């Protein structure tokens, strides 16, 4: 499928699709229509090859051996760090800690920052649209420190309700931890406004970048957030790749996280001293091949251009929302694509999302059904679960048409 209108900076989706081997497979007799990139993205040949090439020709432990292979492995690992730093808008690779993804990154901050600095009565401000991975680590940290959790509520339209921001964000607030893009509602919170407001009361800001970084151009220097979590596998990279951005001076002040090899400077019987940032946080043998693969994913996204990625997703998301609403679906979250991304949650005519997902699978269509680790959102809108279609660089309006056609089939199965 090729786009008939070529705009400047737009994606050549047919060429993109040719890079993803999995998109050539079928499900039963039907071609795969993959609409679950918010759960994990598919991988282009370039990423698969980069990881494979690392194992085939360069595999050794990083930052340890004194031989050529070890130097190559170290260089490739550190090159990936520099790529990720540049990709999110910082020229200091030491501000990037490699982790297995956003969950580990958030837990790292909850242990090494929150448990070190929070005390009874301090507050952490979250929102009702956070993924469980940006709630539970703070609940555990609050339990250990006596800190209190507060939540920004949601409007009926799926936006953050900031009308009480002044009473929720106060000098007691030490951290605002907020998603960059909701994984169920698609909402893009006003990060600039929130960061400025948090800094004005002396709070730090952690942005959960799991859905944001793969889909929207991000610049941590302009945004001025204190932490940004990054998931590699949602941005064309391997599973267990990703990282944490933290301002250099804050990472310096933080405690260590996991103890082990390479994170130390010196070890004595009764204590140890820590390696420099970011190695202080990278204990044991790291996910070297995966981060090298993430580097290739970043190369791929940069070659497409993140502005073009975002423009493509705005277009397909607008088309999907229009088609779903026309078909009679209930769409959750904002409808205006300038304030949302491409994770579209919906209900279709009383058909439970699980039933919908099973029927759509017969047509080769992969969507997510469930609570999406967003139980606060489900409760807010009074549903046990939603169906969710989510889009990325390889999806087409034709696939949205296939989704809508399959909804009609589901209706037939249920005799509605």
């Amino acid at each position, binding site marked *: 499928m090729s786009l008939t209108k070529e705009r400047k900076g737009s994606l050549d989706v047919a060429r993109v699709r040719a890079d993803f081997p999995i998109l050539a497979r079928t499900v*039963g007799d039907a071609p795969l229509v993959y609409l679950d990139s918010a759960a994990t993205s598919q991988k282009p040949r370039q990423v698969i090859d980069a990881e494979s090439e690392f194992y085939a020709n360069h595999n050794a432990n990083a930052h340890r051996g004194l031989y050529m292979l070890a130097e190559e492995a170290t260089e490739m690992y550190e090159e990936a760090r520099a790529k990720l730093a540049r990709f999110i808008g910082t020229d200091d690779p030491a501000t990037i800690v490699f982790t297995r993804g956003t969950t580990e990154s958030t837990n790292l901050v909850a242990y090494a920052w929150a448990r070190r600095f929070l005390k009874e009565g301090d507050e952490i401000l979250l929102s009702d649209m956070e993924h469980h991975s940006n709630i539970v680590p703070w609940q555990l940290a609050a339990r250990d420190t006596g800190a209190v959790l507060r939540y920004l509520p949601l409007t009926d339209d799926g936006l953050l309700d900031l009308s009480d921001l002044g009473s929720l964000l106060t000098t007691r607030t030490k951290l605002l931890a907020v998603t960059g893009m909701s994984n169920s509602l698609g909402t893009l919170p006003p990060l600039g406004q929130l960061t400025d407001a948090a800094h004005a009361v002396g709070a730090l800001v952690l942005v959960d970048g799991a859905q944001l970084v793969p889909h929207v151009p991000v610049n941590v220097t302009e945004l001025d957030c204190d932490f940004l979590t990054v998931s590699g596998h949602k941005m064309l990279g391997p599973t267990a790749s990703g990282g944490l951005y933290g301002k250099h001076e804050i990472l310096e002040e933080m405690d260590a996280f996991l103890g082990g090899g390479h994170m130390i400077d010196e070890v004595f019987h009764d204590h140890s001293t820590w390696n420099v940032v970011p190695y202080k946080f990278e204990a044991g043998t790291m996910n070297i091949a995966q981060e090298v693969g993430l580097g290739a994913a970043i190369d791929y996204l940069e070659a497409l251009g993140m502005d073009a990625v975002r423009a493509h997703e705005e277009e397909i998301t607008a088309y999907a929302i229009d088609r779903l609403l026309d078909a009679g679906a209930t769409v959750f979250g904002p409808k205006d694509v300038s304030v949302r991304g491409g994770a579209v949650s919906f209900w279709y005519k009383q058909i439970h999302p699980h*039933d919908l997902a*099973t029927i759509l699978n017969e047509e080769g269509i992969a969507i997510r059904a469930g*609570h999406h680790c967003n139980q606060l959102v489900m409760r807010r809108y009074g549903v046990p679960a939603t169906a969710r279609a989510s889009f990325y660089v390889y999806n087409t309006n034709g696939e949205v048409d296939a989704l809508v056609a399959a909804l009609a089939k589901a209706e037939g199965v249920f005799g509605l």
Partner: protein
Amino acid sequence: MALDDIYKEVILDHYKNPRNKRDLPGAERSCSRNNPLCGDEITVFVHEEGGKIAEVSFVGQGCSISQSSASMMTEAVTGRSVEETRRLIGDFRGMMAGEVDPDEDELGDLVALKGVVKYPIRIKCAVLAWDVLQEALEGSDGEAAGAAPH
């Protein structure tokens, strides 16, 4: 795979017109459980009389498989002894594990759920109500009646 294997008429009938889907005041036993994967939740109420299950009902929300399974279960166990019911739970689980060829005389309409075995991720939807029933019954052996929802 064909959708007819899973969305059989009898399943859709129980989904659209669930039997015994109501609160049961006076039930000695009840148990609630949710499926953390999907958010489905179900509560099963049991009223016993003379060692037999005199009445059983359920409330909750979920997909067609979990709801129809619960509905058919209430019909299948009403009037059975607790011991027979335990055996039926075992038979049903065996069918859903693909281990046992179902005995149609024993399982009746429930045999319709056999097609779900081909959809491994949905098996837990079919079994949810049965797990809850078993927990409710186990409460009757030892602890105080009316196991607390959890």
